[in-house]
């Protein structure tokens, strides 16, 4: 299929404004500025665009709430804090196609009547910071950002705000706290950011990939866009595939592409012809799947029906040599490190889950440890402000659900039974 989001990225100068313009860039912006804000929201509704950060929330609905709030100024925040392990899908946009994001943000800003935007960029992407700053400067110099954009009376200011290595800041209310100069600890909802967000003003937080869809939606129209992908979940999707496949990388494919096709058709199958053991389909927080469950269409609607989630579209493929107790342990080490400490079930639960998994992996597990893991996980689910605790608990539940014998063998043999 023709690429929309990753168009022209093979061009080594693709991040330059002139190269972007050569492939049709910045032609949607004047068109959008000529439209009423409500017309843009209507096109996005027709397009059926769902947020690409992981939750899959309908974009037009979020925008409608923010647009309806009488408070000004309004803010548009781009979530470029992609920290979900396994995820590197936004990086090619940020590093190689920054102007599609900027154009998307100006269009979105007009739709929301927002005059200020920030790109909250993770600290681990120093190259992207320089590239984005350069692109933003080019856009200002070309009157595509700032006051009176293209002489049409529209104002939109944009700046990069660099995070500092906290996964939790990918959660929108933690991101807002961090942008305000505080620790990245999530807020309780309601109030929702669309009403009381950054600096207590109506705020929309959208993912990099989500906003980068806007130029095409305006160019082609919502109806044409909705023909890509599946009827429930239209559009192109970036899948980032890592682990034991022949050709890992970022793939732009129609939403709803089957997980099996991503692995075997697009990525060339399992590396070295080994046997597939497990797949984490949407970043580390999404439920792991065994090899007989990979016929699922990868979209926000179908994945839950197949026992997992689309998440960020980060597919981690593991072959038969991988110890899944070890993977589960590593995942929990991550959640323990990244828990912000605000909610007790998450702060304590992630630490205990990590400790129990560690002793099983090291050969000191005891009978009853699996039930203990499930008990701790069950006491975390649904008891925290944000989804980090839920993610940690469900990782443990799903590894045990699909691979319980491997955990039992570790405990019985008093050692790792996969890699000795």
């Amino acid at each position, binding site marked *: 299929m023709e690429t929309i989001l990753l168009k022209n990225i093979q061009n080594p100068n693709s991040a330059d404004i002139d190269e972007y313009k050569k492939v049709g860039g910045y032609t949607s912006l004047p068109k959008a500025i000529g439209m009423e804000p409500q017309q843009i929201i209507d096109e996005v509704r027709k397009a059926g665009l769902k947020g690409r950060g992981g939750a899959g929330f309908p974009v037009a609905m979020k925008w409608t709430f923010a647009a309806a709030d009488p408070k000004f100024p309004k803010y548009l925040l781009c979530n470029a804090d992609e920290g979900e392990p*396994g995820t*590197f899908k936004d990086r090619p946009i940020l590093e190689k196609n920054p102007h599609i994001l900027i154009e998307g943000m100006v269009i979105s800003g007009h739709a929301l009547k927002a005059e200020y935007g920030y790109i909250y960029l993770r600290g681990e992407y120093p190259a992207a910071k320089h590239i984005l700053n350069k692109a933003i400067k080019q856009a200002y110099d070309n009157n595509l950002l700032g006051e009176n954009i293209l002489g049409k009376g529209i104002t939109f200011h944009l700046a990069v705000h660099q995070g*500092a290595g906290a996964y939790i800041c990918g959660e929108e209310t933690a991101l807002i706290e961090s942008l*305000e100069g505080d620790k990245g600890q999530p807020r309780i909802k309601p109030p929702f950011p669309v009403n009381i967000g950054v600096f207590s003003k109506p705020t929309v937080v959208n993912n990099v990939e989500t906003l980068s869809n806007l130029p095409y939606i305006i160019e082609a129209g919502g109806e044409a866009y909705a023909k890509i992908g599946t009827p429930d979940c239209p559009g192109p999707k970036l899948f980032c595939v890592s682990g034991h496949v022949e050709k890992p990388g970022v793939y732009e494919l129609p939403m709803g592409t089957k997980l099996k096709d991503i692995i075997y058709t697009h990525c060339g199958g399992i590396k070295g012809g080994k046997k597939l053991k497990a797949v984490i389909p949407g970043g580390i927080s999404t439920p792991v799947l065994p090899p007989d469950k990979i016929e699922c269409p990868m979209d926000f609607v179908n994945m839950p029906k197949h026992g997992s989630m689309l998440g960020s579209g980060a597919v981690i493929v593991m072959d038969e040599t991988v110890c899944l107790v070890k993977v589960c342990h590593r*995942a929990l080490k991550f959640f323990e490190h990244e828990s912000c400490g605000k909610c007790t079930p998450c702060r304590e639960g992630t630490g205990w889950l990590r400790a129990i998994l560690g002793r099983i992996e090291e050969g000191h597990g005891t009978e009853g440890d699996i039930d203990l893991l499930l008990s701790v996980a069950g006491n975390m689910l649904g008891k925290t402000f944000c989804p980090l605790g839920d993610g940690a608990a469900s990782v443990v539940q799903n590894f045990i659900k699909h691979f319980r014998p491997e955990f039992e063998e570790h405990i019985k043999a008093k050692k790792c039974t996969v890699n000795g």
Partner: protein
Amino acid sequence: MLNDASIKEIAEIRTKYPNSRAALLPALYVAQREFGWLSPEAYEAVADLLNVPKATARGVGTFYAMYKQKPMGRHLIQLCTNVSCMILGAEKLVDFLKNRYGIEPGGISPDGRFSLVIMECIGACGTAPAMLVNDDFHENLTEKNLEETLEKYR
């Protein structure tokens, strides 16, 4: 306490936000770049400049992994060991760094040349295992190309 260039840079950053508190994270980065880490004096200087309580500056700074609370080596190695990197051999690279350069995770090499920080996913999973040295990505690492790469950082 901060030099004039840093003070000027922070003043410019301040204009991007509706209040000075929001400039705290970027200002801490500026101070860290000047001093190499965030010493008590660095926190104090940033707090005074932005008119935020010192305890706030320190409380916020210590929340984030990328603000350094102690002096670092000349070059910062940020090596990922999360799942995608781990299953492709990142742990062996940690051992290699220990044996070859005498660096423990979180520590500094005896000659002060390198600091090592173990990272939670740096977004280079498709080219795992991967690391950042200072601001540069190095991907598809093996013991061999890891050593070759590090030899360029003196």
